[in-house]
């Protein structure tokens, strides 16, 4: 079953299209990398699927329904730069936000919510820091806190925007392990990623975009020099070409 259906999605900023006519059908239970060069519209695609940006054309269905009817089943981990790290909030409170999706409008967190929060904090090895203000964490720890928040949401689809940027080796291991565990549980992960180096290792499937969709398929099938060349507009092969000229 296709849990995400994107039909002819076009989104523009100030009349300049960032993504054009994207068609995508995503089935459950995969870790999917979205890769492409800077400005290719990777984050735009993610936000477009989440209904955070107004679309010029196109239609997105999640679990066959409108996004607004599926909000309890999705979670989103934004890029780290966008936060005010001086905000008066500690680790535990950030993770508790993951439970907000399930609380009634005027309800407060209950014992069960606190247990879930403690559980995920232990899972990502951050329980020691639950009372820390978020500025007093390393970059990797900060990233893990936002992962924990998504986990506390207990959703079925996870959207991650550049989770590996500026993190330490330990956090990278934790994130990778977590991605595999979630997939084992039948969850689906969409991960924006800019580094080609580990793309095949991290992801089952790849979405390659550069404003338009270049390819979508199993990582080992679409991660070919020809497709990457098309995605990155030939920039990768300059080195090869200069080598040819020199020889």
């Amino acid at each position, binding site marked *: 079953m296709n849990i995400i259906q994107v039909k002819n999605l076009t989104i523009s900023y100030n009349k300049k299209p960032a993504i054009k006519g994207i068609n995508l059908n995503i089935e459950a239970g995969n870790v999917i990398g979205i890769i492409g060069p800077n400005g290719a519209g990777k984050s735009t695609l993610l936000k477009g699927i*989440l*209904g*955070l940006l107004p679309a010029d054309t196109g239609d997105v269905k999640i679990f066959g329904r409108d996004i*607004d009817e599926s*909000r*309890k089943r*999705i*979670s*989103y981990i*934004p890029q780290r730069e*966008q*936060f*005010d790290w001086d*905000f*008066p*909030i*500690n680790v535990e*409170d*950030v993770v508790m*936000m993951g439970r*907000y*999706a399930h*609380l009634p*409008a*005027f309800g*407060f967190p209950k014992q069960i919510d606190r247990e879930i929060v403690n559980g995920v904090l232990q899972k990502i090895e951050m329980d020691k820091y639950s009372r820390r*203000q978020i*500025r007093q964490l390393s970059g990797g720890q900060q990233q893990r806190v936002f992962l924990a*928040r998504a986990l506390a*949401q207990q959703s079925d689809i996870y*959207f991650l925007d550049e989770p590996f940027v500026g993190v330490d080796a330990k956090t990278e291991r934790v994130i990778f392990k977590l991605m595999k565990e979630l997939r084992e549980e039948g969850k689906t992960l969409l991960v924006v990623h800019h580094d080609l180096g580990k793309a095949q290792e991290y992801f089952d499937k790849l979405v390659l975009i550069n404003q338009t969709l270049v390819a979508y398929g199993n990582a080992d099938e679409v991660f070919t020099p020809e497709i990457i060349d098309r995605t990155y507009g030939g920039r990768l092969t300059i080195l090869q070409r200069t080598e040819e000229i020199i020889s």
Partner: protein
Amino acid sequence: MEIINQYILEPVQYEFIQRALIASITIGISCGLIGTYIMLRRMSLIGDALAHAVLPGVVISFIIAGKSEITLFIGAVAAGIITVLLIGFVNRNSRIKEDTSIGIIFTGAFALGILLVSQLKQVHIDLSSYLFGDVLGVSSGDLILSAVIMVVIVVTILLFYKQLLITSFDPTMAMTIGISTTFVHYMLMTLLSMSIVAGLQSVGVILIIAMLITPPATAYLLSDNLKKILIISSAVGMLSSVIGLYLSYHFNFASGASIVLVAVVIFLLTFLFSPKEGVITKLIRRMESSKQVLADDVIKLVYRIPEGSSKTEIFEKISNSLGVSVSKIKPALKILITQGLISEVNGSINITLEGSKYALKLIRKHRLWETYITKEHVTGMEHIHPEAEKIEHLLPEELVNELDEELGYPEKDPHGSKIPRE
């Protein structure tokens, strides 16, 4: 007692002082609470704009219904909301950025208010009391209004605590879980307009922004917990309003200016002396820690000097190897004596058992750190000693143990010296 009676209790027998006191307290709380969110959402500019922009609303309601608290309230809040909508409209439909559109709209609205007042000479409206506030002239109607406003603000913040928190900290996530950031924004703008209406009476249009920003900023320097900030902020708002009011009564100061200046003085004191972040506090802490560093260096040397050496011998050795004068070593020794790490008996200096343990800990930190940075190739061999000299004073015990574990409990440091362990 006499003084308290004369300056603090005596004025309270007057009814207008009682009214002013209650008004000050409610306004301090309202502004302190709403201001916290205005500060966190970086909206102080729009707060100032709204304060000015309510003026035409106040004047128009005055023309229509005369001096009535209810219509004044409705007029001011309506003017506030219209201003916010206009700013958003200009912002969305042109290339003009938000700060510029705020500037255009609020000055325009304020000018309109002044123009209306100047055309209404026959209707007596006291412009200066709106501009500068007059808390000593608060009527009982005003009082009820500001009390109601406070209750509405407190209840709304309690009910929407979650929504306010998540839209302030992470609006994108708020949207992904279906919380309307637009709704929360306009709700907050309505509450802001209401707190401005209340604050008009005490500090007036021009200075109200101070009551919205200064108490939260003070609280922010004292805590990094939102709930505590909300409480401290309203307490500071209340305190400055009350102190300002007394100063205004006793010295005949303009009430608004006096309240705002008290708030600023409280802010400055916090800025200088707050336990965590105060500028002076940090300076003192740095001085203390540099004294401790010297004391640490001294005890490491005393540990190595044979027991029973005379005081002058010890001073000379320490002075030579650390390159500091004897006059600086004496206070360092004093610190160590009060900490029970060394003892002075009949003019000879001896290290205590505690002192030996302490010195060993320092040596352990030093040598483990040298081992660590050599292993990680952080720096060349010639730099590892000075690096470790610095870090040994700073490493907390638990981190040292972690370091030891990670290194696999090495026997010796890179120089071949034994690493002490308990």
